[in-house]
């Protein structure tokens, strides 16, 4: 899960990056409206955590611009103003959820997971393809009811593929979801993760589409 966090306070930003990272997300950061717009124009995110009061303007304007472009990326507003009228303005402005500061990190993670899965058109919390089941909340995976041990990166690769079974995901796409922009990517990192995953969930589950990328075969 790749998330953009827009927040100008350095301590909170660090906390959000580490905290969302602990829950299995890859976090890109932006500290101003301008950075946020650039990031949103350049890449697709599974969710955006957006502070309302930014140095160069209001997060609500960034949100309005995003929605005006027809971008449906789920957005969670994070703000110090959490009175009812502020929440209403945020939600009516196109936000998917709203959280007032200070907040509980677990709740933030749960809400981000919730808006992200709805963004993928899914209501159930679990990712299921055939006998393989992933639980993004606990980063647990089971195959035929047997739990399998996955590293955080392996879980991220597998959940990216399983979010849309049958759809081909390119190596670049998977890399971005794994590392964001900051991470230093080894050239064959994705291949290594796929290799290890196949050993754990079965060779035939992840298909290589030569020259295009990878996909998980749909259950149907």
């Amino acid at each position: 899960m790749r998330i953009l966090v827009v927040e100008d306070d350095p301590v909170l930003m660090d906390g959000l990056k580490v905290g969302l990272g602990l829950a299995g997300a890859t976090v890109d950061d932006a500290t101003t409206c301008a950075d946020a717009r650039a990031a949103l124009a350049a890449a697709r995110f599974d969710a955006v955590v957006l502070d309302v009061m930014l140095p160069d303007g209001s997060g609500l304007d960034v949100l309005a611009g995003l929605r005006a472009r027809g971008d449906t990326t789920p957005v969670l507003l994070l703000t110090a103003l959490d009175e009812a009228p502020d929440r209403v303005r945020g939600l009516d402005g196109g936000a998917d959820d709203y959280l007032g500061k200070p907040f509980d990190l677990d709740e933030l993670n749960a809400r981000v997971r919730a808006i992200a899965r709805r963004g993928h058109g899914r209501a159930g919390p679990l990712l299921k393809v055939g006998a393989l089941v992933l639980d993004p909340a606990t980063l647990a995976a089971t195959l035929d009811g047997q739990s399998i041990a996955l590293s955080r990166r392996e879980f991220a690769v597998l959940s990216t593929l399983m979010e849309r079974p049958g759809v081909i995901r390119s190596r670049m796409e998977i890399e971005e979801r794994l590392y964001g922009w900051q991470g230093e990517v080894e050239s064959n990192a994705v291949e290594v993760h796929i290799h290890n995953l196949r050993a754990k969930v079965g060779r035939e589950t992840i298909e290589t589409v030569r020259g295009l990328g990878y996909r998980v075969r749909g259950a149907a």
Partner: protein
Amino acid sequence: MTSLKRRLVLILLAATGVIWLCATGWIYASSRSELEHVLDTRLQEAARMVHSLVAGGNIAAAEAVAQATAPPEAGYERQLSCQIWSLDGRLVAKSGGAPEEALAGPAEGFSERTVNGEPWRVYTILDPDKGVRVMVGDRIGLRDRLVRDLVAGLLAPVILVVPLLGLLIWISVGRGLAPLHAVAGDIAARDGEDMRPVAPAAAPAEIRPLLEAINGLFAKVEAARRQERDVTAFAAHELRTPLAGLKTQAQIALAAHDAPTREGALRQILVSVDRTTRLVRQLLALAKLEGTPSPPLEAFGETEAGALLRDIVRQTSKPATAHVVVDDALDAVKLKGDHEALHLMLRNLHENAVEHTVEHMVGGGTIAWRPCAGGLCVEDEGPGIPEDELPLVTRRFYRGRSRSGAGSGLGLTIATMAAARAGARLTLENRRDGAGLRATIVWPRGAA
């Protein structure tokens, strides 16, 4: 509160009434003089008629005519009375209603006299040839009644019309004041939040100045409220964001399985606590500046600027690579005023300068304190402040586009307030050479 409508109706009714009264008085006077003239002419004619008969020697006929001059069915019966006297004072003949007593004296012409308690107007013709005196008179009381009846006839419709007129004025004034009611209704129907201007274009010219004044007030109230909302929003942001950071980092420290993550989170907590401590210190300073009245400047001794500044520099942490210069000439500058306010002002300016310089020059840079005309100034090597934000940065919690990570938006507010308390004025400007910001403190009354 007096009603404009009631006032207008009363004024209009009174004005109409006065005009009517004047008109009535004028009609009364002119009718009366006209009537007097007509009746006098009649008296004269009747007297001549009777006399011509007397002159012809026909006393009996004259008497008959005298009888006929008072038609009994006129409603003003026996209006005219006629007497014919011989010159030796014997009553020769008289009309039916005439009294026995002489109606007038011996003189010829018009005269007035009271006979049997009744005032008479009499015309007398003296004929020495025939030896008779002909007197024709009428009762003044009757004349008055005639005039009264005439005027009453004129006034009767007026009395009937007055209520109608009053009603008409009431309705017209009501309609005339309708735009005022419309505007009042518009304003009354608003809730406390609605500060849109009242449309003055649609209003009558008379109340437009009032509406423009109201709109001006609306704009001021709205601006004050917006600023209040901004301050509240900024304050909430500045207070809650560090708390959110602390909580998040604490939860990470609890949840982290590896030592480096936990250590990183704890370090962030320390950073956040330091910053929050400064924020709390500034909030308390602000509360104190606002909460206690300004003592008179004379109550305080002099503070040496150089020593105070070196004190502050020692208390403020900064990276070793950044330079702080306190000009030796400042030792000679004596500052008057509240020592605490001076300390607050200089400390906040110094912290501000250090913070921006260190951030802008990546750890290096120079902060220089030196005397200026009428006071002292500090120059930093920070990014400066965009010109359009200069008037705004002293507002509490205001943090511009170039805000640094550590600021709270209170430092310059406190410095400005403390300066005012010390009898000084703080001006901020970008340095001419573009290298940073210059803050100048000037004592306009030369207290430095």
